[in-house]
């Protein structure tokens, strides 16, 4: 694209990049922190480099530095970013504006948020091309339609006339890829482009992105925390941690023969040994033929759902977004009274409506949520948060309560020192642990875990799952574990219910549900989970029996 081609095949050469930000801790003077410590990387034309690491590793920050962009006051304070043979950091604001959207384009994690809701898709897709004057409007639109076709979007001729809210998440992610490719850049920065999607959709988008990269010979920085995903699209992988380089090598070497201990930990993160427990004779909680809808809508979100939960065991509910998993939890807890069907607890039916249930029933069913930070009052300390159910259900006060809080903190492997902290002073994993302690404080028979590890980094999620299993052994508490992540299911479940469009399509003990013969949907779900295997993507796409819903 750019006229000043470097002599070699080198496109991007980042040397000793140093990125800093100023933080304003409450009650302290502002201070500088270093986000990226002297990281160097090179990328040849048409190649894909995967940047991988946990949150805070500096992946996105490094990726965006190739466009001279720093999010929220982040500053590039050292090093060189040489793109097409020139140091872009010396070009100033005008220089950045000329290369953004022309030489380097960006694909964001959530296309749903990254598209402007007020404009039609086509206007947004061709905007950068027109801005930089590389094509007329007619040419750019023709190019966009061709890209929509290549990315196998439905109705490629007319999809551009739609507004973002009229298109599903998976399709939007592909439109965003088309938007990046439309101005024919030399480099695209993909920032977790499939993380927000369902597994069955992720595989389609991943395949579309991979084909588009191959056919257009564009180079890419592919940022993700999921090694299995990055292994499908990258030529090389760079592992980062705390803004420092851990390991950099070919894709095969990184996933098969990692040289660093940290890389090894990332590669082997999902393996938890969990012996399946046989279902007991009598379940303590049965959901029988429950049907539910939101408002007076005719669309039933749950259709005739029946599942049983046995004491001290885990029932995993799996499915895509919109399959009714969380609605099932809402029906059980009484937040959404079912239209038909019953929920029985210890042999007696539970009141449909939350307001009609006695305190004792409320105590027996507790919940943990996906977003731990919004599930806690930011102005209460950890001790107040955990102590609240103790006061509410057991009337504990003073020293007795404090002793119990310390006990619970001990159980979640956090010391007494945490009791005076506020949620904002905890890490993501610690916040989730506090939520677990809060639900345990009520001594419930059942804890409903709604996507509790989805917002966490793999290693942290691993720790949470191990903690949950250990607590189950100690307290004999049952879990209703809602998740879209099959790897999690394998590590924690005793029985599994697979949900699809409001119905349970497969239900039984884990070993049975996960062994063939499969129904079409379970097969799709299972075969869509990325495996850390080069060439898995092509094999999986070929072997599919059913197309995904595409949301």
């Amino acid at each position, binding site marked *: 694209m750019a006229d000043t081609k470097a002599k070699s095949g080198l496109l991007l050469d980042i040397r000793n990049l140093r990125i800093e930000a100023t933080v304003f801790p409450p009650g302290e003077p502002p201070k500088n922190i270093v986000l990226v410590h002297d990281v160097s990387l090179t990328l040849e034309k048409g190649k894909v480099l995967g940047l991988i690491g946990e949150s805070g590793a500096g992946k996105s920050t490094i990726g965006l530095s190739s*466009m001279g*962009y720093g*999010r929220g006051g982040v500053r590039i304070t050292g090093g060189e970013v040489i793109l097409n043979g020139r140091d872009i950091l010396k070009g100033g604001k005008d220089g*950045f*504006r*000329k*290369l*953004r*959207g*022309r030489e380097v*384009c*960006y694909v*964001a994690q*959530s296309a749903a*948020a*990254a*598209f*402007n*809701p*007020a*404009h039609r898709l086509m206007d*947004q897709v061709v*905007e*950068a091309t027109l*801005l*930089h004057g590389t094509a007329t409007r007619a040419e750019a639109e023709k190019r966009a339609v061709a890209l929509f076709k290549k990315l196998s979007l439905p109705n490629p001729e007319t999809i551009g006339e*739609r*507004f973002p*809210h*009229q298109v599903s998440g998976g399709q939007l992610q592909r439109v965003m890829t088309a938007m990046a490719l439309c101005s024919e850049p030399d480099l695209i920065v993909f920032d977790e482009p499939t993380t927000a999607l369902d597994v069955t959709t992720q595989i389609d988008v991943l395949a579309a992105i991979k084909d588009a990269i191959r056919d257009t010979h564009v180079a890419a920085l592919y940022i993700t925390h999921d090694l299995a995903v990055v292994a499908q699209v990258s030529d090389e992988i760079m592992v980062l941690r705390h803004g420092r380089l851990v390991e950099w090598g070919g894709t095969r070497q990184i996933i098969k023969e990692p040289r660093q201990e940290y890389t090894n930990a990332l590669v082997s993160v999902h393996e938890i040994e969990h012996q399946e427990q046989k279902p007991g004779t009598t379940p303590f909680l049965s959901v029988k033929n429950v049907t539910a809808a939101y408002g007076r809508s005719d669309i039933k979100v749950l259709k005739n759902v029946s599942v049983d939960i046995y004491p001290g065991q885990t029932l995993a509910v799996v499915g895509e977004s919109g399959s009714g998993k969380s609605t099932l939890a809402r029906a059980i807890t009484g937040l959404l009274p079912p239209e038909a069907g019953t929920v029985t607890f210890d042999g007696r039916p539970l009141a449909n409506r939350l307001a009609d249930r006695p305190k004792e029933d409320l105590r027996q069913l507790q919940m943990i949520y996906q977003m731990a930070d919004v599930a806690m009052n930011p102005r209460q300390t950890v001790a107040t948060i955990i102590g609240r159910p103790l006061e509410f259900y057991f009337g504990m006060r003073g020293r007795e309560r404090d002793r119990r809080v310390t006990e619970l903190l001990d159980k979640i492997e956090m010391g007494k020192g945490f009791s005076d902290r506020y949620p904002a002073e905890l890490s993501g994993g610690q916040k989730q642990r506090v939520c677990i302690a809060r639900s345990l404080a009520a001594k419930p028979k059942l804890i409903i875990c709604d996507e509790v590890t989805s917002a966490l980094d793999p290693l942290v999620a691993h720790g949470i799952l191990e903690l949950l299993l250990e607590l189950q052994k100690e307290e004999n508490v049952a879990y209703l574990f809602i998740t879209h992540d099959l790897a999690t299911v394998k590590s924690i479940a005793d029985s599994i219910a697979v949900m699809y469009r409001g119905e349970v399509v497969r239900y039984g003990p884990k070993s049975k549900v996960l062994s063939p013969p499969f129904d079409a949907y379970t097969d799709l779900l299972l075969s869509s989970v990325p495996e850390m295997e080069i060439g898995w993507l092509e094999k999986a796409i070929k072997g599919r029996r059913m197309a995904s819903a595409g949301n």
Partner: protein
Amino acid sequence: MSSPILKLVAQRVALGILLLLAVSVLIFAGTQILPGDVAQAILGQSATPESLANLREQLGLNQPAYLRYFHWLGGVLTGDLGTAMSSGQDIATSIKGRLWNTLFLAFWAAIVAVPLAIILGLIAVRYRNGWVDKLISGLALASTSFPEFFIGYVLVYFFAVKWQIFPGISTVYDGMPFGERMQAIALPAAALTLVVLAHMMRMTRAAILNVMQSAYVETAELKGLSAFNVIRKHAFPNAIAPIINVVMLNLAYLIVGVVVVEVIFVYPGMGQYLVDHVTKRDVPVVQAVGLIFAAVYISLNIIADIAAIVANPRLRHPK
């Protein structure tokens, strides 16, 4: 336009009418609670009980209150606002010209104030936290913080007394040439502009800054758009609903809140008419003017609501 929008708009309009009816009850009840009645006001303190009773009979004042309310409401709905006690003139005819004067003043003040406030808001966002932003915010807040009469007299002092550019008294009459009329309202319009500017400007700034946190603003920046185009093309269209709301609130103020400014500049508008008749305890006029002000206020708020609904692409283009 599709049915969900029509339905929402119909709902808003119906609600507005209901609200207006409720306001009419309040206005009527309010004037009933006041001590004394029209007959007493007309005859004065020296009236004999007999003459009072006669006049009450004559004016229908001894009928029950709800009958008088429906009588009054029926009159209002057919365009008959009653007769002013102080002058004996038909209220509807005297209001017509004054309402037009008030709308004329409000219109020109709005024509200046609204675009100016929005543009200043956009500029403040573009240079946020810099000296330009602080200067704009500071001046706008200062102009709002001074009472209207103070601003009015300062304007009169400089523009009418010292430099003699504009008249200090805004006399207008029927058949006045447009140019002269504009010259007459220059100072009150300027005073009104200064009063409403800051509110709209600050809201524009806040609404756009809120949107500036969005991921799609980052997308636009990463396409290479200049800072001002990012604000204009990507942030502003999504901030329009709260901006319309505050603009309508201020337009309503320009019409119903101009009392002080009209009195200062002796401008023959609704505000002055109201003040004159409040001092004369002319209840029918106060009722009529109150009802018109309420109607203006409610309809502008309905327009704001509808505009905010129409500005939402999710409602304009359903799935």
